[in-house]
């Protein structure tokens, strides 16, 4: 009973693996097979390489605004990995690791961030909602999806992600209240990365922890070391089992750190110190799991190097394709507005095509 032992009002933080990769809480170490642990490590490495590459492309002028996930790989992968294929994922925009885990194709993700809606078109069997930019708005969708699962009598659960800043929005309160009142099977994963752009977590709310906010809604809540993939997994698994067996929603505050910029348009040096960043580098979730895996001889340094190179090469190759295939035809702007194109939209499209033809004829 992890949640019970880590009462948020007592301000405890749940950890299984410390910064050096040692298991400090063996009783609560989740029972994961080697294959899964290696997959976790690999997905984290892949997410990291994608972030580094896309940020670099942005600097080179090849990429638009991008929101990197660096430092938050354990928070997303540790939680998403408790889901079954039938379960739903409702993201914000900083869940690359979770998307990769669920099998979201790279070309789709890149296409989205490269500025084409085609990137938000999920395959039929991929139960992931499109990226949601308006802060906290997606939480209500998660509650609705989970409510429908419950009404339909399925065992599906829904996981949803949001940041520390999102907890100030009305939609957060409404979603938490509703989910608890109707006992909908939702996992609320708050990635407390300590900042909402320039706004530090301490100024966002007077509450000592974000996990505490669950209490007033009548929902189990817990603060977890979000850079510890095992702790994230164990807490999420307990919440998932509760949700699947009619026990309703849970709030997990993943206590982590955004090691990169908010987005490529942001300069974090304006509002936080190098020392603070450096102190978090020692807590890097990937370094931690790598140490664990090396100690246990689950992987070798050489293997890790090989994987990294493969990931980098894959990003290179997929991104080039995306660059070449992302232009939008005028039709694409109109086609998905309604189930059927309305006469009015058809007229606007025809007008626009007339204009293109006029331009083509040398403005005659």
């Amino acid at each position, binding site marked *: 009973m992890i949640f019970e032992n880590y009462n948020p009002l007592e301000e405890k933080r749940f950890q299984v693996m410390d910064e050096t990769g040692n298991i400090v809480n063996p009783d609560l170490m989740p029972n994961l097979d080697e294959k899964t642990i290696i997959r976790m490590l690999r997905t984290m490495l892949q997410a990291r390489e994608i972030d580094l590459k896309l940020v670099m492309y942005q600097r080179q002028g090849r990429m638009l605004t991008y929101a990197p996930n660096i430092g938050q790989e354990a928070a997303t992968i540790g939680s998403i990995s408790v889901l079954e294929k039938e379960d739903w994922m409702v993201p914000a925009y900083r869940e690359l690791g979770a998307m990769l885990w669920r099998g979201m194709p790279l070309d789709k993700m890149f296409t989205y961030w490269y500025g084409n809606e085609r990137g938000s078109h999920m395959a039929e069997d991929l139960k992931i909602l499109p990226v949601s930019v308006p802060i906290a708005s997606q939480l209500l969708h998660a509650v609705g999806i989970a409510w429908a699962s419950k009404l339909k009598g399925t065992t599906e659960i829904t996981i949803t992600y949001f940041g520390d800043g999102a907890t100030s929005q009305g939609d957060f309160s409404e979603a938490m209240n509703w989910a608890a009142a109707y006992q909908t099977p939702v996992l609320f994963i708050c990635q407390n990365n300590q900042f909402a*752009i320039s706004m530090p977590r301490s100024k966002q709310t007077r509450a000592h922890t974000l996990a505490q906010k669950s209490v007033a809604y009548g929902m189990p809540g817990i603060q977890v070391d979000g850079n510890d993939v095992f702790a994230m997994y164990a807490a999420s698994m307990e919440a998932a089992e509760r949700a699947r067996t009619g026990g309703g929603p849970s709030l997990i505050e993943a206590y982590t750190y955004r090691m990169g910029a908010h987005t490529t348009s942001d300069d974090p040096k304006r509002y936080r110190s190098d020392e603070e960043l450096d102190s978090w580098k020692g807590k890097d979730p990937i370094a931690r799991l790598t140490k664990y895996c090396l100690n246990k001889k689950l992987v070798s340094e050489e293997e890790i190097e090989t994987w990294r190179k493969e990931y980098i090469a894959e990003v290179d190759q997929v991104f080039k394709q995306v660059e070449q295939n992302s232009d939008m035809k005028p039709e694409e*702007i109109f086609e998905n507005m309604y189930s059927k194109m309305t006469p009015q939209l058809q007229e606007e499209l025809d007008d626009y095509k007339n204009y293109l033809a006029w331009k083509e004829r040398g403005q005659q």
Partner: protein
Amino acid sequence: MPELNLLKAVNLALRQEMRRDERVVVYGEDVGYEGGVFRATEGLQQEFGEHRSMDTPLAESAIVGTAVGMAINGMIPVVEMQFGGFVYPAFNQIISHVARMRNRSRGRYTLPMVIRFPYGGGIRALEHHSESMEALFAHIPGIKVVIPSTPYDAKGLLSSAIRSPDPVIFMEPKRIYRAFKQEVPEDDYQIPIGKAKVEQEGTDITLIAWGAMMQETRKAAAVLSEKGLSPEVIDLRTISPYDSETLVKSVKKTGRVVIVHEEPRSFGTGSELVTMLTEKAFLYLEAPPARVTGFSTIIPLPRGEQHYLPSTERIVMKALETIQFLT
């Protein structure tokens, strides 16, 4: 006289109004310490302190809702919404209270307050960072909607907005935040809300636009002039209440009009202006009033934006069609 871009002109207006009247407070997400994500409020916290230039929790409804209370209790809040796409959590406060408090209380409670935000496309941004939805706000009786298109106007109009006894939505065309500089007097000056500006006089056709679309419209006017035509160019400057007098006068002279806007076509500001012009200048019209606008669609992500946003060429084509109508 300093040469400033539009963004710096906004900053200067805020600074001067805060110096002039200590009731003026500025707040919003990342507005204080950071100076705003576009730096519109840069330096204000340093000069005026944390009690006058404030960071807020991430909650637009709260930002606008508290501004209503602040204004009722003697302050002049000038609040920022980070982007036009993120005003909507505050829409309830805007439509239910900001717009209605004066009328509801029969003038006992009034709301001298400004809600400012960057709007519009053309900067290759993420979803919700590009829309242009002025008609949505203009449709609400009880608030004023102002959009500058030059640095000079930005300062004069924002200064007026802050001194206005009525609540003002001040939309800033972020695409041209840094597009060009202009001489902006340090001296105090206001540009009246509700007055359009005839930027270029002409006799063949009236081109009406505002905000970032003024740039395309100015270029289109130059192309038309090169072709030997004489366009009149009007910057609407205030969407609501708009300056029908100036528009009607112009259209009575030219008999032809093209309205350019970035917002979606249907139920857009253009629809209102065309109706008004048809009502007031019907017998002077020599061609159907025309519009060059964004489509009645969601503004696409950056790879499709160039189709959506009215271009100089689209304006030129429509203007030529209108001029050639039945001639």
